[in-house]
């Protein structure tokens, strides 16, 4: 593995240009609310958020790789570490911790102690069952997919539902082998 992999995103976070946290939070809140009014079904909203996240993720990954000179991860464990320490810090300003590895090392949990998305947020009774931060799972999924890891990302714990932290379970479904060398005409 490359020694040059940054173990934390602080450096990058320090010199990415930022937007006001409240503005960011409120914007996201507005989006979710709008989705709720448009789609009416909480489940639909969860799907939509995940889809949006996916679309973000598949774009975000390039910026991530460009800005943080992360080299190729040897295994999924390392990938998870990088996401948690560098990725989250870089884009969300918080670092997650990785835990709950299963034996095969294909399934782990990213645990967010605090989450800027949910400042001020309190779920009303009408939309329990909403995964407010479902966009994050989508982002992770999309990003990993672009580096040829099919994953399944699900929420295990959610502070908005009274849990003590946000726990995002990332499960590696399969690793698509990248064929080298690519043919020129493709």
């Amino acid at each position: 593995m490359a020694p040059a992999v940054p173990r934390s995103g602080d450096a990058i976070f320090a010199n990415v240009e930022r937007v006001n946290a409240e503005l960011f939070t409120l914007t996201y809140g507005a989006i979710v609310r709008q989705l709720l009014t448009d789609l009416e079904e909480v489940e639909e909203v969860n799907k939509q958020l995940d889809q949006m996240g996916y679309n973000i993720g598949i774009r975000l990954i390039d910026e991530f790789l460009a800005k943080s000179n992360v080299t190729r991860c040897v295994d999924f464990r390392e990938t998870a570490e990088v996401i948690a320490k560098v990725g989250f810090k870089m884009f969300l300003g918080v670092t997650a911790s990785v835990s709950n590895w299963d034996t095969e090392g294909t399934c782990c949990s990213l645990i967010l102690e605090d989450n800027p998305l949910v400042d001020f947020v309190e779920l009303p009774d009408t939309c329990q069952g909403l995964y407010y931060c479902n966009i994050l799972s989508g982002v992770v999924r999309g990003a990993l997919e672009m580096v040829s890891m099919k994953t399944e990302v699900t929420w295990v714990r959610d502070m908005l539902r009274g849990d003590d932290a946000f726990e995002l379970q990332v499960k590696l479904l399969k690793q698509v082998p990248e064929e080298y060398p690519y043919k020129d005409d493709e």
Partner: protein
Amino acid sequence: MIVCIAVVGHQNNPLYIQSFTEADDALKLHHIVHCSLDVVDERVNNPKKSGPMLNETFLGLLYPTENYKVYGYLTNTKVKFILVTTDLDVRDADVRNFFRRFHSAYLDAVSNPFHVPGKKITSKTFAERVTNIVKSVSFHTTG
């Protein structure tokens, strides 16, 4: 002791009224708060009273009822906070401080994307926070 704290919208519609007494005097407190709005309007409409401190949000003592004191606080979006207390001599600084903390709590509450502006504040966390603030604040007058 603080008897009641209320948030009143810019159309003078009650957004949040919380009384901290065991007694069932919700109605009376509603009346007091509602009544105090007149004074708020008065204060706002002829600002010569609050001449020196322009755009000052703290309105000070609105009016003393027989056994309460009513304080007011007006945000720049014309949302009013009304405080009803039984402590008869209170230092303005304390009240001011209280309102400042209450204001920040209010801000977070209305930042909740699920809160509809101009509608009643139903947030539980807000209620808890307010209760804590009220508990923490005590208008003990130092002479």
